[in-house]
């Protein structure tokens, strides 16, 4: 419902047929709950500039806990005016009220005309307002109106027990919450960061260079704050507040607790380099905030006294920094370590796990154990290839006997004569992974062709038992 409709005397909740009867030329648009919700989210995102504690009050409200924040904006009423002025500039109609309790502010914002309720004056502020200002269900409001209780003031001094018996516990709870007799915390939309540093600009900045310089400055403040408490950041976020009330949030994860300012700045430089196009500075940013969302304890490292064979701590830190930066640029999933898995199916024997997630000492084995876990066979030669095709490549192979090793095979249109073949190494599929029951046993052969090509071939299906026409595949290449 827009202003024009309101001037015509239409009301919210009025049946559409009635409205049409009054004004046949009425243009009707279906309400878009999802779009409204997105708008509310965007506004909430933007309100983050006032306080990190922003709670959603769907479908049409926001709760801001401005405890300790208001003085930054010149006091509570100045802050409220600033907020409303900025929202109005965006074409949004909004009402705001500041009060000691969330319930009171809710009621005053919607039904009252004051914008600021002085401390401890909730009762006086609420008394003249209709009962609906207590956040009650419409039925309760109607039931109250039937017995003549139309204003909050009518309710406040009534005996509590009969009220509760007649209208339910919720009425008393709302009343208590509004008057500050019962505590009501605001649930923040976003996790509260442990460390925050922010910078506001009277003149908006737009150049990437300026943004990065700002981040570097903020990182120094953040780093110093974290060092005092011996914390390091695992997840960092930069929020860029655009002058026209759009907010970009850029997150970067780290593999090890980090508080080195230059490295934090470098991570964001890499991240911005990849997603730079997605952040359109428009008329510029007037506020930049750097926050450590997840932190971890990190003791100051002692410099190595002597080279002990293990990686020096600073070398370790450098590796983590490299992994973080590559992850920031390409996404953490692309920077991996290969971790052995407990299976004998060749293609699942190792899994690529994001390097940032594998801890250094978790599951560290000696290097020899490493090899024996990965391959059960001990052999003169390496029993496993160094390159494995994700999809085994079909080859035409000829064997002297149906279940014997191949004598020659054609791979990628080149015919290879087999000089030596070792095998078979029979690998049956794991039935507990196999949904269809169609997986066939494989007989693997390590073969060397006359010109030295070493390949890992397998025949799918046991001849005569599982299939009459076994097919051949090339699965990998040896070094």
């Amino acid at each position, binding site marked *: 419902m827009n202003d024009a409709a309101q001037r015509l005397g239409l009301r919210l909740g009025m049946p559409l047929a009635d409205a049409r009867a009054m004004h046949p030329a009425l243009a009707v648009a279906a309400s878009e709950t999802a779009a409204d919700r997105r708008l509310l989210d965007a506004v909430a995102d933007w309100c983050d500039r006032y306080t990190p504690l922003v709670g959603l009050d769907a479908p049409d409200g926001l709760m801001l806990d401005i405890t300790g924040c208001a003085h930054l904006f010149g006091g509570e009423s100045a802050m409220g005016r600033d907020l409303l002025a900025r929202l109005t500039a965006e074409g949004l109609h909004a009402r705001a009220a500041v009060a000691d309790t969330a319930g009171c502010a809710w009621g005053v914002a919607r039904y009252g005309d004051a914008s600021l309720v002085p401390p401890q004056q909730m009762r006086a502020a609420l008394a003249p307002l209709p009962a609906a200002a207590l956040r009650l269900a419409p039925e309760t409001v109607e039931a109250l109106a039937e017995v003549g209780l139309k204003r909050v003031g009518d309710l406040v001094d009534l005996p509590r027990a009969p009220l509760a018996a007649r209208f339910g516990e919720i009425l008393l709870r709302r009343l208590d919450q509004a008057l500050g007799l019962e505590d009501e915390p605001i649930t923040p939309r976003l996790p509260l960061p442990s460390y925050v540093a922010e910078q506001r600009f009277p003149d908006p900045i737009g150049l990437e260079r300026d943004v990065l310089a700002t981040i570097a400055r903020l990182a120094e403040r953040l780093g110093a704050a974290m060092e005092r408490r011996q914390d390091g950041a695992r997840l960092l976020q930069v929020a860029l507040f655009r002058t026209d009330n759009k907010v970009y949030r850029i997150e970067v994860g780290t593999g090890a607790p980090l508080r080195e300012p230059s490295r934090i700045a470098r991570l964001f430089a890499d991240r911005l380099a990849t997603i730079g196009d997605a952040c359109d500075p428009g008329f510029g940013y007037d506020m930049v905030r750097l926050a450590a969302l997840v932190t971890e304890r990190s003791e100051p490292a002692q410099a190595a006294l002597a080279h002990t*064979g*293990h*990686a020096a701590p600073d*070398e*370790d830190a*450098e*590796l983590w*920094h*490299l*992994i973080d*930066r*590559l992850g920031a*640029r*390409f996404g953490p999933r*692309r*920077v*991996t*370590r*290969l*971790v*052995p898995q407990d299976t004998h199916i*060749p293609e699942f*024997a*190792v899994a*690529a796990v994001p*390097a940032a997630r594998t801890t250094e000492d978790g599951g*560290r*084995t000696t*290097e020899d154990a*490493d*090899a024996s876990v*990965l*391959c059960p066979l001990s052999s*003169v*030669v*390496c*029993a*496993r*290839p*160094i*390159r*494995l*095709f*994700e999809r085994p490549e079909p080859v035409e192979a000829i064997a002297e006997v149906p279940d014997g090793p191949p004598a020659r095979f054609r791979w*990628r249109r*080149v015919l290879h004569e087999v000089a*030596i073949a*070792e095998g078979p190494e029979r690998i049956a599929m794991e039935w507990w992974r196999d949904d269809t029951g169609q997986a066939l046993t494989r007989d693997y052969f*390590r073969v*060397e062709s*006359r*010109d*030295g*090509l*070493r*390949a890992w071939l397998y025949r799918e299906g046991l001849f005569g038992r599982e299939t009459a026409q076994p097919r051949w595949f090339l699965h*990998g*290449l*040896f*070094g």
Partner: protein
Amino acid sequence: MSAAKPSAAHLSAVGLSTAEPSAGSRETLNALRRVVAGASRSGEARLGLGVASLDRALGGGLAKGALHEIGPAAPRDGGAATGFAIALAVLALREGRQAIWIRPDFIAAEAGELYGPGLALMGLSLQRLVVLEVPRVRDGLWAMEEALQCRAAGAVVTELMGEDADLTATRRLALAAGAGGGLGLILRHRPCRAANAAMTRWEVASAAGERDGFGGLGLPAFTISLVKNRHGPTGQWRLSWDHHERAFVTAPALSLPVAATAFDRSSRPQLARAG
């Protein structure tokens, strides 16, 4: 480090004598040349490959902190080229540090993925390997430059298809390798002859390997050709990688039985030799 001070002193001495070098200044100049030569030699750490003739050709081993290029002699030798790159990485990692392996996405379909168990068997511990997959070749080169500058990276391998990485790109990589001190390897999957800034270029072909004592597969053999060498001769070698010792061994030219079979035992000569 100690070379820095005397060279500064000599430099001022040289600067005074401009037109005709006197005997004293010539002496100074020679001393200065020795200092410079010594500094450049000590600045280049070498990675010995363990094969005398090969190390001699390379002037003491493969230069660390430099860029080297490995390619297959023919497209089917991709496995052998990969094996050679892994072997070099294993050698480079003997003193600690990590290997970073960078691979553009499309390589996997063409040449196969890197397979952990095989790498571990060749001696490259999976705990010391970081694999990075990049969407484009350009990203791979960027990542390689970054990784080479990192002092924690002992070896950085980047897989490329054919002609990628021109003179400018490889020059940047070579400088980065010099800064970080790690071994930079470009592993190509197609033969490439274009000029670039790599210190050496190797072409690897798989060769028929040895037999073990029972006529089965022995150690794999490569024929490696050093086709470009900035500071020495080129040449060709036949090597095997011994994954137990984690070292290169010279492969015999032909796989013949080493010892003669016993005269009076006609049956199972190979078994008799093996026993």
